[in-house]
């Protein structure tokens, strides 16, 4: 059975088409894997085995009839931020426990139309707010990786911790995630897998529970660059139901993996070499630079001068938008309702939201409410939008000189659960390398490039020009080849 789960998505896709095995067999293998490992990892909030098997049977019929879609029979995991028809969708929150959408998100609709099937909804930081998946109402997700020198449970990263853990532990062939400030890239780095965040507007946000509207983007987790390219192609595309959706046609990203990056100019921003950066990360970055040089790319030193202000900017804009986006969770039309004894409406709102939201969500709603409030809007929100302009401009200027940018994904490897939890700012600093890209709306990929001394995966990030995911994938493919990262978490792939 684990033979089947060791195949990559591209391999499984080709094998299914060649009728080497059935979609049902493949899916059953994954269903078994989930049953076996999920209790420990807690990567899934809702498991939909029956639905997955039924879907696999339907896929087999389609394959037999020669009508296979791009992802026919492929079992996937879906971050519990995407609304799935009649399947519980919680956003990792008590306030949506039991909520069953009567509609499908555009992203998942595309996956089902391509023939994929759903193994379940994965765990996440509540309302996508976090970098550790330790804020979910449904419990922490455990990183399938363990440090050489310890026995502590490690975080998978966040907010899409469940999806990352599920892919890393081979509980699915790929998984969807969302990335607002790094929520795909950072967990991909912590879990030793590939994670892609496309250009803002590439994927539809319709039916994706909103955190920060001007930053949220759906993206994919996969075991390798090819798998990520295949799945990212399927979920991308214009959606008239999303007014911020780009009208640009989606290229076939798999075709971009030519293996040739000769002559490409790769920028290395000096501002990303931060104080106190671990030497392991710095060394890995240098290795990455070397690999790309050897593959024929030209390395260019660049400056992104406003980098250090990105986190503060993000932590004004994202909470502001979130405070407004989460106002609809009020106990009136769906989700949790706490009916107060005195029966008054105002109490209903306040008690429902107090009981339904966790600490981090409340904190960000408070921050967001404050920065939008009378007297503070100019000093905070307006200011942040102006700095955002400068940050975006930094990239625009850099892209007159280079085609892509190489940086580390995270300032450290996965840390232990409970570490960094005292000071919110310490947790926010996890996103220092990923946030600027989000503010500028650019595409970026994280791929595993090496192991720390402690045996934990470390990732490198490639940032591209707007709507140039093709170059991002192309460079990532070459780097993947050079890095030869073959490590897997213990107990996986056996």
């Amino acid at each position: 059975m684990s033979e089947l789960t060791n195949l990559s998505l591209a391999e499984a896709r080709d094998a299914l088409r060649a009728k080497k095995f059935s979609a049902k067999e493949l899916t059953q293998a994954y269903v078994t894997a989930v049953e076996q490992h999920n209790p420990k990892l807690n990567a899934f909030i809702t498991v939909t085995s029956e639905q997955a098997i039924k879907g696999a049977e339907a896929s087999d019929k389609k394959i037999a009839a020669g009508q296979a879609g791009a992802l026919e029979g492929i079992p996937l995991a879906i971050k519990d931020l995407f609304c799935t028809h009649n399947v519980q969708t919680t956003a990792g929150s008590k306030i949506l426990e039991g909520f069953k959408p009567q509609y499908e998100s555009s992203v998942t609709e595309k996956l089902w139309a391509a023939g994929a099937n759903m193994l379940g909804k994965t765990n996440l930081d509540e309302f996508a707010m976090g970098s550790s998946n330790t804020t979910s109402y449904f419990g922490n997700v455990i990183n399938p990786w363990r440090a050489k020198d310890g026995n502590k449970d490690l975080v998978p990263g966040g907010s899409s911790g469940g999806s990352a853990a599920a892919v890393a532990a081979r509980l699915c062939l790929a998984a969807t995630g969302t990335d607002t400030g790094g929520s795909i890239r950072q967990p991909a780095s912590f879990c030793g897998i590939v994670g892609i965040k496309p250009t803002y507007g590439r994927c539809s946000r319709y039916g994706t529970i909103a955190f920060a509207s001007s930053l949220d983007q759906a993206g994919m987790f996969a075991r390798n660059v090819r798998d990520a390219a295949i799945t990212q192609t399927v979920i991308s595309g214009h959606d008239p139901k999303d007014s911020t959706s780009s009208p640009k046609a989606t290229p076939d990203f798999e075709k971009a993996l030519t293996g040739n990056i000769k002559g490409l100019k790769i920028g290395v921003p000096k501002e990303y070499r931060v104080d106190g950066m671990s030497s392991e990360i710095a060394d890995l970055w240098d290795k990455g630079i070397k690999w790309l040089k050897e593959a024929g790319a030209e390395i260019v030193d660049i400056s992104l001068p406003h980098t250090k202000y990105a986190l503060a900017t993000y932590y004004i804009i994202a909470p502001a938008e979130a405070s407004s986006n989460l106002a609809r969770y009020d106990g009136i039309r769906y989700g949790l309702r706490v009916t107060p004894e005195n029966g008054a409406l105002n109490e209903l709102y306040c008690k429902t939201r107090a009981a339904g939201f966790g600490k981090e969500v409340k904190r960000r709603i408070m921050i967001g409410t404050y920065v939008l409030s009378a007297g503070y809007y100019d000093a905070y929100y307006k200011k942040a939008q102006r700095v955002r302009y400068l940050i975006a401009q930094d990239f625009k200027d850099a892209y007159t000189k280079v085609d892509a940018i190489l940086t580390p994904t995270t300032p450290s490897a996965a840390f232990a659960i409970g570490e960094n939890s005292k000071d919110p700012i310490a947790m926010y600093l996890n996103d220092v390398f990923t946030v600027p890209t989000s503010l500028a709306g650019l595409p970026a990929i994280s791929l595993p490039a090496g192991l720390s001394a402690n045996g934990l995966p470390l990732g490198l990030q490639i940032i591209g020009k707007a709507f140039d995911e093709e170059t991002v994938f192309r460079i990532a493919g070459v780097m993947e080849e050079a890095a030869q990262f073959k490590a897997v978490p213990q107990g996986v792939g056996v």
Partner: protein
Amino acid sequence: MSLDKAAITKIAKLAHIEVTEAEKDTFVTELSGIFKWIEQLNELKTDDVPMLASVSDTALPWRKDEITDGHKRDAILANAPASDYGCFVVPKVIDHE
């Protein structure tokens, strides 16, 4: 910028989230810290810089005036905590317009 308890109380009221006294104290500490950290943005002069509210590459799309939706009351009420007469039921709203 240091936030005091009164400010926290006001924000919680606006956000319609009930907070205990203990939680207020925690918020005072945490949010004061966060806003102090955010103050670094004041190092930048931005008076002549425009606001970037969207990184979207498209203009606002306009939809034709056609009826393409509605008539799905069951779906609308499917997850309602309380419904009756085809409506959402809530504790009495005092100031009706």
